[in-house]
């Protein structure tokens, strides 16, 4: 990551997962492109959408929001998808309780496949999407939801509507907060981690050697 003394820039990869038609793509579109379309269309040809946040006067945050492209949805994500992710949204559809039942499966898969460098789970926020519509199941009971989120290791949950633009910014802000917090811890850990430093220095050296060779 490019770090300069006065301005900090962060690039974060965030996964957006959940069942078919839960509203993953709509969430991303609303957040990144500020629009909503009622037509259901499979997501084609795009790995991620990029959102640039001027977090504070000294910090720029670039978020890569990785959609599961609807296709790996049968539960078999490639490692490419999970690689280097630092945060995740799991989305379910409040009008279909079946999409909620799959949430814990998604969470388990996520935790099994990607960890923070320290080994802990990456922060994950649960989105109860389509809250502009009539709710079904556990999501009608806020206390139960709070309990569920706590037990299952989520960083929090939000009722969202990609259609009505409810809680979209708020949930993203909450996740980025978590990520920045972790990042601080990691950076501190990094400094004490000789191994990582050695890796950077050897290959850094290699690159200079290579350049030297080229500019002969």
């Amino acid at each position: 990551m490019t770090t300069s003394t006065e301005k900090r820039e962060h690039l974060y990869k965030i996964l957006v997962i959940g069942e078919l038609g839960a509203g993953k793509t709509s969430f991303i579109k609303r957040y990144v492109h500020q629009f909503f379309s009622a037509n259901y269309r499979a997501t084609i040809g795009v790995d991620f959408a990029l959102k640039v946040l001027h977090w504070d006067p000294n910090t720029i945050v670039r978020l890569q929001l990785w959609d599961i492209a609807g296709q790996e949805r049968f539960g078999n994500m490639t490692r490419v998808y999970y690689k280097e992710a630092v945060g995740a949204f799991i989305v379910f559809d409040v009008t279909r309780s079946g999409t909620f039942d799959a949430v814990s499966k998604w969470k388990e898969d996520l935790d099994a496949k990607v960890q923070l460098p320290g080994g802990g789970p990456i922060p994950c926020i649960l989105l109860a999407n389509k809250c502009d519509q009539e709710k079904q199941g556990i999501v009608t009971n806020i206390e139960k939801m709070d309990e569920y989120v706590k037990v299952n290791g989520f960083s929090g949950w939000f009722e969202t509507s990609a259609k009505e633009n409810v809680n979209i910014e708020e949930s993203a802000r909450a996740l980025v907060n978590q990520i920045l917090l972790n990042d601080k811890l990691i950076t501190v850990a990094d400094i004490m981690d000789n191994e990582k430093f050695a890796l950077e220095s050897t290959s850094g050296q290699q690159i200079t050697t290579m350049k030297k060779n080229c500019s002969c």
Partner: protein
Amino acid sequence: MDEDLPTEFDLVVVGTGFVESIVAAAASRIGKTVLHIDPNDFYGGTWASFNLDALQSFISSIAESPATDESKQFNSIKNASQIWHVTTPTATPADDAIPEGQEATEKIWTKENVLKEFRRFNVDLSPKLLFSCGKLVKLLISSNICRYAEFRAVDHVCTIINGQTRSVPCSRTDVFNTKDLSIVEKRLLMKLLTSCMGYDEHPEEFKDYEDKTFLEYLKSVKLTDNIIHCVLYSISMSNEQTSLKDGIDNTKKFLNSLGRYGNTPFLFPMYGCGEIPQCFCRLCAVFGGIYCLKRSVSNVSIADAKVDSIKCGNQDIKASNIVVGHGNILPDFSIPAGGTGVGKKCGGISRAIYITSSPLGAEELNSSGGGVNFLKLTDESGTGAFVLQLSHYSGTCPKGLYLIHISCSAKSNNPEADIKPYLDKLLTTDHPPAILYSIYFTIDACLRCTSGASITNDSLSNVFVCCGPSFELDYDESIDNAEGIFKKIYPEDEFLPRAPDPEEIVIGDEDPVSVADDVITLDSVKEQIMELEAGLLHQEDCMEENSRNEEMAMEVGEE
């Protein structure tokens, strides 16, 4: 996660190995609907990488199922065995093949210790290296799939001379700095490499050796044995029988890939070669391909010498074309014959994998824990063996341990016996590795390559069988195989045109900057690919100029 699949596809691909995944990605990229399934619960088939836990169960499952078991899903790997050479939590290695008194390792590795770190392993069934300017690197860049992968430049190309493991000087700097060569030898080597690069422009230099072997030519230009050894076995990866033309072509291939990254012409994919097929799968998925692991084809219905539909789970799925990967077979299915290339067969590889607690070779080959080292071993008659040593910097094993992969052409059904002469060479060097655990297995040829021409008559015109890994260092033959299949199915279409960058849909007030990384991403190559064509010429000029300069420097030194 359990919805039904759509019931009609342009292409159904069975198996997620390298070749299958490329075909799937290429079809999806041009807008075809693709269903990509794999009977296994992991990606990659014969090309997969496993953590240590998964590897052990995989090897046991193969070792335990009888070779004759037709129903076996995974039939491309056989003769598998594994053994721990350390068992008890004591320091003494149980195997007498391990010489004592190696450099003191701070940590005493017991079986339990090693197993505790199982998740840090990514052990490849089919490890490979990429030439920095080779076919796969070019394909990854031209298709823009490179953004999914990261690489480590190979640290040393090694050779064994008189029982010593040495680094082969690759770059001009290496040649200049090495203590293994005398100044006269250095000059001769530079001169030789320069004339190999100029083969096409000055064929007259080689006129007398056209029908001779590369070795005869090397001897004729009065090189010392040391240099002949390095050039013949390590740089051109040839043997005594290799023709002049092949020897020179191989040498040029090596030299052309130099100077792109690091000190050697090779790249190794971070976290193992098993990542590579998944990069193609991801592209396929991004363009609409549907993925399902743990699904196999239980039945096919045939009409007019074509497969009309397949049964997958409890669904009937119509497919215009079917691509079947190495190690997968369809029921009621006859295989069109013919292999990868003329006279070549895929598979037929004997494999060994060792987990070691010390690396091969002295400290200077493995500075700060070692990186990725490559060694080509020869034998008198055959094609020799590829040896790859990986440290934790490759993301394939924990710190303090090393993976040593050996691959050679299978001569028998006993991979251990096939590998033994090469292992012995490693174990009798001045710094042999201390082996904790070993695995042996054979990678079979695909059905197409084994079946011969006899059953072509019954072949189904819309079924295509992919080859497994070939005995080659890079992926050239496998890419040809994939492109060949793609062209047969879609003769009019472009093979993996560049996929757009996600950055092209940036919302925000600034252009995205690429993130500086200590690991090489092929993105950084993109700028360099421009220099690529120019680079060759440049390099020749440089080599000439530098050898002149270095000669001058040496002469100054001599005075």
